[in-house]
């Protein structure tokens, strides 16, 4: 398919100030933790000190005796959960697992697993009371890595769980023919004939890789304030990426009809996929019901690290077959990703994405979702893709070296193009993969010379599929010629601006004439999460369609005012409505007449658009490795990405820069450190080391714009793919600097030094 020619836009592509900006630079914006209600209680959660233990007894008498403590709950205070599936938009999850993860039933399955919660009149009293809840545990042996978990005879975290084939996970069968301990599911992705592919190969290379557990690391801890009133209506104020997903999960956990639940999304301080599942929100609700008062719960930072979804630690093995000229003939991968205590790792996406930038006729990926005694993972920016791509892109680099081909050249020779089939059989349409590689090859960074000792340059590609899903929007024309735009998509990084810009473009009016607001679940139709790189795309479709409806209505109104046939009236892209005999209305003019000619005009839309455009990225990085300390310094970084159309280039660049730096963190410093009993040893932002201003350089971006034909303004999702290439790009750069291939990330000085020392 041919991409539509880039249109000259008036608003799209400009860089206006975001509508919520002033409140956010003056401290006035209201985030979830900023809610205060009369009579409010403060809730806290008691967490398991063990990675795996039977809960023998919980005695809350002493805690309840403390003045100010109003209630203590355990899972017994929730309605009983049966096995059923709940759909979270980014992940599907069994209800029983969901409830057990919120509050442990008979066993605590990871260090930090919630076992009880309480509410008190004062936060200090709540904290004191936690220490007074007595819990008797019987410790059980923990399973702490995919290798341990899948070994023959390994203790099973869920004794009745058997490996199922992924497609059938939620149906009664079929069980996999190969039952592997703690492997919740196996997914095979396959295209072509692998044996034949390897038979054709002149070079075969096989390598193994591992990555550690990394957390999304949003700066705002999870929070939620619940009020369950006397008529059984539940209102929850919180920070979430998906108010409707939250409502649906609460309905299922609490066995309430959705009409009894109102979720009010406050401003959200980061999510990256981690603020979609329920954690303490149902506890706050039940505590409110028990006490008849609003209950506010805010996680401490260590609880965020203990108890909310990180992304999987992984093991990936890759085998590539190629001709001497570099043509790939076969690609095979084995992926085992930690799911944490309940099934649902993003391993399938890892297998799906890793080979996608390339045209390889014969591919296979075997993906295992593995239960371990660690927190249940949740989505994290392009979930599953970074680890798989780290393995693929590192192996490609080594192949390039073996064949003495420039690493970018090797990638270009094998680039997936329109018509190339992915591993799931689908053929690509209108992709910017080659354009991205070309832009990388022409970039100032790639063409510069890297000088100095102990320095190296690395390059890697990344792919992500991007999301569609359901979005609602409506827009009202105001008398003064402005438009009120009502959204169900929460604004996590400039979405109000990006959506206001699109409807302004559709209506031919100025950006400043649009007043966007984000509303609660009672005030708009179902809207899926802000996540999955879908909001600017799918909610963008919704605001565009709402805008088109306004155009049609205004044409009809102008026809009525002019007393002419509606077919003679046209709403033009410049926002002027033109009729016969040179009659015309500007948007403002007709807006001012609406109330006297039949009332105001609204446009509304609920969409589930298809036509999402996949995203490709190429990152280039220069590093210097200190030969004595093995500290890796990132000297220069360039991220090239096909963004479709950059609606607001600042926010597109910002997504790319933020994702790249998160990827650098995964590559160099970020990792959960467990002791041999499965206790998390670095549950603070001092010890879980995310990049600071001193750890990264400016991140240069090159935006390639290959418009997505599946969107009126050519939008592709941009948010997720930038976290995919950095891991391998950094590892490849370290190799060039030191000669050492880091097959385990993060390449912390401790790990890297071990590799470096024998070299000396």
């Amino acid at each position, binding site marked *: 398919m041919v991409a539509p020619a880039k249109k000259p836009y008036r608003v799209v592509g400009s860089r206006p100030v975001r509508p919520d900006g002033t409140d956010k630079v003056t401290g006035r914006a209201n985030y979830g933790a900023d809610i205060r209600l009369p009579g409010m209680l403060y809730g806290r959660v008691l967490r398991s000190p063990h990675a795996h233990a039977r809960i023998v007894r919980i005695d809350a008498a002493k805690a309840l005796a403390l003045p100010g403590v109003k209630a203590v709950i355990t899972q017994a205070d929730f309605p009983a959960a049966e096995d059923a599936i709940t759909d979270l938009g980014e992940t599907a999850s069994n209800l029983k697992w969901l409830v057990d993860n919120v509050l442990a039933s008979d066993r605590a399955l990871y260090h930090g697993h919630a076992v009880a919660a309480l509410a008190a009149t004062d936060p200090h009293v709540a904290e004191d009371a936690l220490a007074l809840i007595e819990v008797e545990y019987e410790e059980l042996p923990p399973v702490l890595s995919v290798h341990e978990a899948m070994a023959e005879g390994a203790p099973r975290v869920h004794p009745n769980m058997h490996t199922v084939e992924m497609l059938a996970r939620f149906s009664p069968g079929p069980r996999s023919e190969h039952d592997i301990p703690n492997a919740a599911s196996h997914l095979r992705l396959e295209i072509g004939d692998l044996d034949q592919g390897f038979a054709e190969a002149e070079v075969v290379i096989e390598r193994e890789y591992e990555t550690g557990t990394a957390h999304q690391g949003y700066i705002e801890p999870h929070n939620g304030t619940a009020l369950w009133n006397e008529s059984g209506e539940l209102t929850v104020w919180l920070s979430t990426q998906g108010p409707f997903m939250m409502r649906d999960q609460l309905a299922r956990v609490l066995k309430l009809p959705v009409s009894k639940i109102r979720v009010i999304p406050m401003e959200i301080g980061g999510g990256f996929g981690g603020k979609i599942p329920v954690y303490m929100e149902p506890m706050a609700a039940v505590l409110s019901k028990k006490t008849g008062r609003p209950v506010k719960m805010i996680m401490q930072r260590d609880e965020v690290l203990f108890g909310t979804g990180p992304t999987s630690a992984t093991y990936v093995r890759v085998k590539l077959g190629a001709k001497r000229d570099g043509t790939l003939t076969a690609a095979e991968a084995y992926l085992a990703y930690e799911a944490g205590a309940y099934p649902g790792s993003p391993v399938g996406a890892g297998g799906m994405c890793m080979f996608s930038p390339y045209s390889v006729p014969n591919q296979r990926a075997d993906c295992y979702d593995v239960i371990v005694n660690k927190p249940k993972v949740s989505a994290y920016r392009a979930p599953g893709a970074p680890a798989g791509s780290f393995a693929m892109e590192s192996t490609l680099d080594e192949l390039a070296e073996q064949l003495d081909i420039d690493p970018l050249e090797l990638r270009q020779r094998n680039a997936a193009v329109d018509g190339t089939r992915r591993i799931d059989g689908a053929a690509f349409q209108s992709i910017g993969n080659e354009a991205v590689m070309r832009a990388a090859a022409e970039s100032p960074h790639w063409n510069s010379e890297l000088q100095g000792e102990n320095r190296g340059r690395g390059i890697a590609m990344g792919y992500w599929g991007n999301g569609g899903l359901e979005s609602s929007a409506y827009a009202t024309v105001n008398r003064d010629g402005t438009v009120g735009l009502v959204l169900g998509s929460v604004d996590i990084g400039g979405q109000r601006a990006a959506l206001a810009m699109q409807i302004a473009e559709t209506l031919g009016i100025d950006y400043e004439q649009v007043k966007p607001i984000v509303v609660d679940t009672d005030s708009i139709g179902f809207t899926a999460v802000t996540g999955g790189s879908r909001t600017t795309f799918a909610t963008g479709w919704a605001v565009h369609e709402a805008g088109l409806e306004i155009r049609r209505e205004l044409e009809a109104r102008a026809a009525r005012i002019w007393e002419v046939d509606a077919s003679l009236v046209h709403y033009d892209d410049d926002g002027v409505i033109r009729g016969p005999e040179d009659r015309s209305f500007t948007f403002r003019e007709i807006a001012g007449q609406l109330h006297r000619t039949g009332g105001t005009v609204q446009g509304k839309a609920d969409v589930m658009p298809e036509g999402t455009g996949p995203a490709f990225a190429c990152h280039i990085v220069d590093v210097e490795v200190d030969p004595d300390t093995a500290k890796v310094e990132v000297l220069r970084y360039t991220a090239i990405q096909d963004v479709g159309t950059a609606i607001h280039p600042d926010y597109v660049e*910002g997504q790319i820069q933020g994702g790249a730096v998160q990827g650098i963190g995964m590559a160099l410093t970020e990792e959960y450190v467990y002791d041999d009993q499965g206790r998390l040893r670095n549950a603070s*932002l001092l010890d879980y080391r995310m990049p600071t201003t001193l750890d990264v350089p400016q991140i240069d971006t090159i935006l390639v714009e290959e418009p997505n034909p599946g969107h009126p303004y050519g939008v592709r999702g941009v948010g997720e793919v930038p976290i995919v290439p950095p891991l391998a790009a950094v590892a490849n750069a370290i190799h060039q600097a030191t000669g050492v291939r880091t097959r385990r990330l993060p390449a912390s000085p401790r790990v890297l030094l071990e590799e470096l020392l024998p070299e000396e």
Partner: protein
Amino acid sequence: MSSRIIISTEINGEPAEFLSDERDSLLEALRDRLGLMGTKEGCNNGNCGACAVLLDGRLVNACLVMAAEVEGSQVTTVEGLAEQDRLIPVQETFLERGALQCGICTPGFLVAAHALLQEHPRPTEEQVRYWLAGNLCRCTGYDKIITAVLDAAERADAPSG
């Protein structure tokens, strides 16, 4: 049980007297006792800078200061940065440069940047990175934050108009 204490201080230029728990940190006192919600909590541990405020002109993390310690002191929070109805240059450049995404780190960065610019009106990129190293931002990768602060320095320098 802990006891209550009365604290007299000056917050954002106004005298303030409030009842606090003796265990309250300055962050808790600002938010829970005074309702000044602009100062954010990211870690409660001194590691993220979201709670940065000026205490007698010095940049501190409010979660590491006890409320009782601010008796008789002057505190400036993000709510006190703007002058009357005008944003200060670094607030403007944060908006113009897209230096915030989710915005939860922004109050802390603005207070820290303000402290930097008071001390070094024309900082180098290195100085900016050094002064802001105690503030974590997970969304932006820092690029646009650094640019916004450097821009603000230039703007404050330029003849007004």
